[in-house]
């Protein structure tokens, strides 16, 4: 039965995989052979160099970046969020410039485009809103035209429940996530936006357990994060087969120590966040997971056959849309997501807030130590910036999502948001410690709180 792979011709998948393994293991072997002090130097996050690389990008980008000319709010987000993760500062003048620039990307009829004068687009809207939350402060947060933005989100809504990325644009799970994320953080999620979104996401969960971009497509790490986060934010996460999803995502961490995006694909540092972030979410969904497992056991049956308990429309008959909750926030932000008790009324916009206050399972279900090793040794460019994998060049996207994933690892064992992680949770020196993120939105947790409070009043 065992055919030795070395004697038959390797397939494309094997060939690519072996090349990457070879490079990754070479890094690890080199590391293992080093004396102690050299080892710790290799594990150090090169903060100064990362900052230099990031700040440079805010000020000037080479002509080759013209292919990202329709993604400039993304560039803002990747860079500003990376800087915030490092807990470093941007000159206040640059922050003002960022607010000013993003205002020029804001469409008069709502939403943000990829650059000044471009059509509004959901992905760049998400990036712009997250950038402005990351900058924080009255001037930044009030620069978002919420009423118009809400109208834009509604224009993108389709009868199926899903969203289009832009006027006459493509429909997929990203569009659902970026809409729901933005609406939730700006305190304007309502029945109209939520309606049937859950059905669409559910139709994208594949036989493998992960979530695809569209019904029928292949389970994929990016879409799995987006779909899972969306279902949590609309309070319908119990409709997903969470045990199947967890099993799929658990198998995405491979012997290279990092995550791959799909079954039998190559390791890639950006999935440190997309897959690692899914674990951070699942870590707070144990009561629902247990409920699904109990259901499975009692029926001698499987959660594929979909128990369905609690639906969002029962809950959010309270406040709607922009007409917010003022200082009721603390009073209304109570029960949602506590187990399956979805029958009590509450404000759907508070789910993000309540979620992070949920007690998390003590241990993450992925290998945090291994993932940190991959990020620090394989994806870090010592000259600044992070990369997909050895042999690739650094870029701002992988810098942002590798650091986000690293933060998830470091904080994955602290039960209490106020107590910093123990040094034993961190690989490398304690100076590697990054700021904690809110895993549903991927913004710094403190900045999320500030925004949540700010928009609760507006």
């Amino acid at each position, binding site marked *: 039965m065992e055919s030795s792979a070395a004697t038959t011709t390797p*397939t494309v998948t094997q060939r690519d995989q072996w090349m990457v393994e070879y490079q990754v293991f070479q890094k690890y072997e080199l590391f293992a052979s080093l004396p102690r002090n050299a080892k710790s130097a290799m594990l150090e996050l090169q903060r100064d160099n990362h900052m230099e690389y990031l700040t440079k990008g805010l000020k000037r980008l080479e002509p080759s970046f013209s292919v990202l000319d*329709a*993604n400039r709010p993304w560039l803002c987000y990747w860079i500003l969020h990376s800087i915030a993760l490092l807990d470093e500062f941007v000159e206040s003048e640059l922050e003002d410039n960022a607010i000013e620039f993003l205002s*020029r990307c804001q469409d008069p009829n709502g939403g943000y485009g990829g650059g000044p004068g471009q059509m509004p687009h959901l992905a760049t809207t998400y990036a712009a809103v997250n950038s402005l939350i990351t900058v924080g402060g009255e001037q930044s947060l009030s620069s978002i035209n919420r009423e118009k933005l809400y109208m834009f989100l509604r224009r993108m809504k389709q009868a199926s429940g899903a969203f289009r990325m832009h006027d006459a644009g493509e429909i997929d799970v990203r569009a659902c996530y970026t809409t729901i994320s933005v609406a939730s953080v700006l305190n304007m999620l309502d029945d109209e936006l939520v309606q049937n979104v859950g059905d669409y996401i559910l139709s994208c969960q594949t036989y493998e357990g992960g979530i695809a971009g569209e019904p029928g497509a292949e389970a*994929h790490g990016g879409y799995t994060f987006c779909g899972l986060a969306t279902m949590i934010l609309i309070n319908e996460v119990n409709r997903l087969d969470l045990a199947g999803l967890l099993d799929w995502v658990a198998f995405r*961490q491979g012997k290279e120590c990092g995550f791959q*995006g799909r079954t039998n694909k190559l390791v890639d540092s950006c999935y440190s966040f997309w897959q690692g972030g899914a674990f951070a979410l699942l870590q707070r969904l144990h009561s629902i997971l247990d409920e699904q497992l109990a259901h499975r056991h009692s029926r001698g049956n499987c959660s594929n056959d979909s128990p369905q308990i609690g639906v969002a429309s029962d809950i959010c008959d309270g406040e709607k849309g922009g007409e917010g909750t003022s200082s009721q926030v603390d009073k209304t932000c109570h029960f949602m997501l506590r187990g399956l008790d979805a029958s009590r009324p509450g404000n759907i916009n508070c789910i993000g807030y309540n979620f992070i206050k949920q007690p998390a399972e003590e241990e993450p279900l992925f290998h945090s130590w291994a993932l940190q090793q991959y990020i620090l040794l394989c994806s870090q460019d010592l000259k600044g910036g992070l990369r997909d994998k050895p*042999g690739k060049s650094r870029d701002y996207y992988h810098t942002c999502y590798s650091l986000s994933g690293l933060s998830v690892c470091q904080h994955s064992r602290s039960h209490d948001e106020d107590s910093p992680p123990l040094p034993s949770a961190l690989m490398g020196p304690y100076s590697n410690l990054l700021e904690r993120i809110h895993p549903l939105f991927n913004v710094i947790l403190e900045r999320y709180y500030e925004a949540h409070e700010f928009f609760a009043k507006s």
Partner: protein
Amino acid sequence: MDSVEGKAQRIPLRQRPEWSDVTPVPQDDGPNPVVPIAYKEDFVETMDYFRAAYLADERSPRALRLTAEAIDMNAGNYTSPAVSLFHSLRVGVERLSGSAREEMDSVEGKAQRIPLRQRPEWSDVTPVPQDDGPNPVVPIAYKEDFVETMDYFRAAYLADERSPRALRLTAEAIDMNAGNYTVWHFRRLILEALDVELHGELDFIENIARSNPKNYQIWHHRRWVAEKLGPDATSKELEFTKKILSLDAKNYHAWSHRQWVLRALGGWKDELDYCQELLEEDILNNSAWNQRYFVVTMSPLLGGLEAMRESEVRFTVEAILAHPENESPWRYLRGLYKGDTQSWVNDPQVSSVCLRVLKSKNNFVFALSMLLDLLCHGLQPSQEFNEVVDDLETSGPDQPDSDLAKTVCSVLERVDPMRVNYWKWRKSRLPHST
């Protein structure tokens, strides 16, 4: 970013003294490979030397350099700084191979581009500069041609000029940045307004796609055109996606487009054979497995999952036994019983494939994982299962767990350390009475 290993003046490996002692190992494609790839000579040579080094397990500095060159050439490798949202969404500045670049350059006369301001055709238009403000962040040091093209594009867009010259202008702008969805959107408005015959549009897209196979806008545009053309476009679309997939058999967008074509326009007849071909070529190609699932469940010609189950299980079991370390068929096998867990638990073919792999004592993680799921869903294990699992549990010498599911978890914790937390968690959540 473009100077990795001096690719510009690549010296063939066979001419480098450093490699003179090595005999390259050619790829064993067989006499009649399915979907053969017309590899470039450099690619073939690099891979032949890589195979030689790999098979010899030569862990040397020169081998390291060689892996860098090989990775640099791999079709799935873009060196771009460019992405949007996820990795697979990268808009590439993929280096174009020589011949592709020549073809590209002849499109729209890029090679000898005449500035728009010198073209009589545009003399009546005042270009509109980008409103970046006095101190923009993430400012891009655009090339002059780029700025000029976009300035004229903005003028036409703001004037909503749906004319032939505006259509040509969108092509130039797309050629410079295929990720600009506003330009694509405006192009569609013009195509509609001018009622342009759309078959030519397919060729335009194909040219752009060659250098940007992973760009959302191209595929969205392609879907729009194909939808307008209707069933006439079916075979052309299936051919087009096949061509893209022959370069990268896991291109997510190409698969999505292909699924859309099948669903919206038809063309199911040969799809299962196509999946079969791709899997024969690369049994680890999970995208092909996913497509197979799509066909088996959705094709109007096949009768649905239940009708197909028996033959699919046979195929899948065979694939598992040939490569038990391949995760794809294991997940596929489980998928074949979706919505009918009881049949999955009771089908002797399922427990027997687990048992056979476990008995081999090699690459048995997926077999154990499936056994665990089966037990959680009520499988009553035979004595054989108890014996073979006890056999694998070498650590605890004398107190084998009376509970098979627990023992399975313990073995998994040991043999699959990457998922040790997951297996511990699974163990903690086992039903109390098995």
